[in-house]
């Protein structure tokens, strides 16, 4: 089993640090994603693994072989480029055969392998076409075939679905997963699209400013973000910073900075050492919060807040409510299930109850401040509603 080891990788461009001391092991056969906003260093990292950039510092190993200084054409690594980079003057067959031809593979063997590969990506009936005669999704498949035919140890995918429309993207995502299962080699996937990364990956590394903020399985990152950045970059969330005002064995009480003295609980099964009066930040996913116009029955592990609906965004599968709780604003997702509480649709300016289970109040560990710039803290901090609302309107 050949693990890919990134050891203390750093890369600077003209004084700008693109990748900053990244260390990571990627397991053999894993589908691993680097996820982050543009400029976070994920593509540079990929290009270093491919051999197009030489790191200023650190080593890259495949198994026990150090490939840091090996030129790209000698690495057993292949890349799917963002715009596919198919050779326009070659047929699809010639495109796929390129790697084998360069290695002077005997013709009969080459023909068989190209045909098999084209079959794998379901393009065997179009082998004689040219790249400008096929659609984006088909180009994507040819790019995959062209890379995989070289039996790489690692396949690198640089935002491979960015150029496709939404439906096709979802379709190709499933196909990529199927191909990954079929060939069983390591895939390293770079994307800024969190839903792509979440759905396809075995593990995800969230990156920002050239660093890995958090790495782990998608559900782990979503449910248990280790930082403000992780919490707000992956999915939607409410981030609340408040003061610890009570410590019990079962829970910790957090004073809600809503200006009206509300408080709520964090389940204390999370191991952290609370100190009275200390400011902490919690993440509360919008879909974890229930919304109701009637007061829910009291349970001791349920947090409850009273608020007023400020805005309603109908999003098809669910509705996003923006609920004002004193000086705070909460985003709440509610699916349209009539079997549950409110039959009658909620209305603007209507007083409502928000309630959620205290285990869903997720405490974010104090992370090193320098990872987030001041701007991001202000945006991603206590109430980063404007940003999220903007993102909502795009999706």
């Amino acid at each position, binding site marked *: 089993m050949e693990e890919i080891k990134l050891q203390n990788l750093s890369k600077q461009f003209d004084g700008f640090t693109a990748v900053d001391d990244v260390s990571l092991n990627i397991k053999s056969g894993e589908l691993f994603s680097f996820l982050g906003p543009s400029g976070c260093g994920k593509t540079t990292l990929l290009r270093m693994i491919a051999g197009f950039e030489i790191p200023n510092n650190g080593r890259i190993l495949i198994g026990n072989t150090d490939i840091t200084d090996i030129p790209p054409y000698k690495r057993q690594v*292949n890349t799917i*480029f963002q715009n596919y980079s198919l*050779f326009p003057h070659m047929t699809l067959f010639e495109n796929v055969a*390129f*790697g084998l031809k360069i290695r002077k593979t005997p013709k009969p063997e080459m023909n068989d392998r190209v045909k098999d590969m084209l079959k794998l990506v379901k393009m065997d009936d179009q082998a*004689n076409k040219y790249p400008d005669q096929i659609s984006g999704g088909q180009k994507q498949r040819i790019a995959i075939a062209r890379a995989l035919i070289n039996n790489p140890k690692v396949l690198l995918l640089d935002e491979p679905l960015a150029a496709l429309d939404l439906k096709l993207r979802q379709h190709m995502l499933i196909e990529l997963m199927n191909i990954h299962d079929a060939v069983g080699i390591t895939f390293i996937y770079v994307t800024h699209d969190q839903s792509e990364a979440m759905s396809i990956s075995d593990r995800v590394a969230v990156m920002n400013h050239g660093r890995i903020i958090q790495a782990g399985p998608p559900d782990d990152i979503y449910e248990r973000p280790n930082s403000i950045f992780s919490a707000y970059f992956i999915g939607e969330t409410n981030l609340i910073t408040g003061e610890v005002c009570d410590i019990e064995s079962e829970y910790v009480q957090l004073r809600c900075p809503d200006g009206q003295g509300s408080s709520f609980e964090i389940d204390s099964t999370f191991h952290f050492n609370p100190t009275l009066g200390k400011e902490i930040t919690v993440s509360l996913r919008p879909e974890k919060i229930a919304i109701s116009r009637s007061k829910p029955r009291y349970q001791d592990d349920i947090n409850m807040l009273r608020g007023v609906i400020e805005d309603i965004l109908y999003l098809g599968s669910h509705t996003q409510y923006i609920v004002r709780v004193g000086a705070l604003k909460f985003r709440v997702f509610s699916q349209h299930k009539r079997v549950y509480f409110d039959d009658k649709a909620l209305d603007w300016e209507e007083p409502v109850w928000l309630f959620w289970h205290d285990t869903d109040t997720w405490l974010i560990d104090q992370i090193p401040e320098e990872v987030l710039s001041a701007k991001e803290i202000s945006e991603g901090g206590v109430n980063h509603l404007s940003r999220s609302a903007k993102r909502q309107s795009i999706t």
Partner: protein
Amino acid sequence: MNQGVRFTRDQNRKNLASWLLTTPALLWLLIFFLIPYLIVIIYSFLTPDIYDVNFEFSLDAYRQALGADYLKTFFLSFRLAVLTTLLCVLLGFPVAYYIARAKDKLKNTLLVFIIIPFWTNLIIRIFSWRIFLAYNGVLNDILIKAGVIGAPLEIMRTDLAVILVMVYVYLPYMILPLYSVLEKLDFTLLQAAMDLGANELKAFFRITLPLAAEGIFAGSLLVFIPALGAYLIPQLVGNQKSLYLGQVITYKIKNIPRNWPMASALSLILLFGVAVLLLLLFALYKRSKARRRV
């Protein structure tokens, strides 16, 4: 039905407009291109006189022109054109490639440098080469002072001088079309090729070169055709022992006794040769394109 009527009326109006707009150009071509050519064609079938022609039909001019007397001339001109084109490709490609990959600001500066020579009269530029290459010229001076050679080299008035100046004059005509294809070339294709196992050399021959073929083709036409009929440069820096086609044609008209039919026949053979070559090349090009469009 109604629509159809309106369509044809619009169509007629458009046709009328396009005729009106193209008429001046067509007239110009008729008067200054087609009619002179007709005169040349007619003259090539007449018999020469000391100053003018006799209006007697004859094929002598063609018989002679295609005979052994002019074989050397045709060969020299053809060799010059081929050598100039080859050297322009070899020298122009790296330059065009470098400019195409340069950053925008540098790119524009470099392009201006390529174009600047066009702002100076060709004859002046050729004369400066004469000064540069002359027996007591700048080049010999430098080489002697640098101790590279003991005695001055005889470069002026040789075929080497002709080639040097030809390449100098025609290089921009090669660089510019090459640049325009290389500028559009997606350089990530080269990375893709390297990613698939091709080293720099293989990537160049399998990706860059085929994709630049159109530019090489266009540039070669721009260089080869005028080089085939070159007159000025061989006349100003060449010698009288190896006369090129352009010079021979001029002499037939300039020197007494004149031979208009001969000059005309030689010109037409040159034209015909170029036309055949062009048609062949275009057919080849079209076939390679058609293969792609099936």
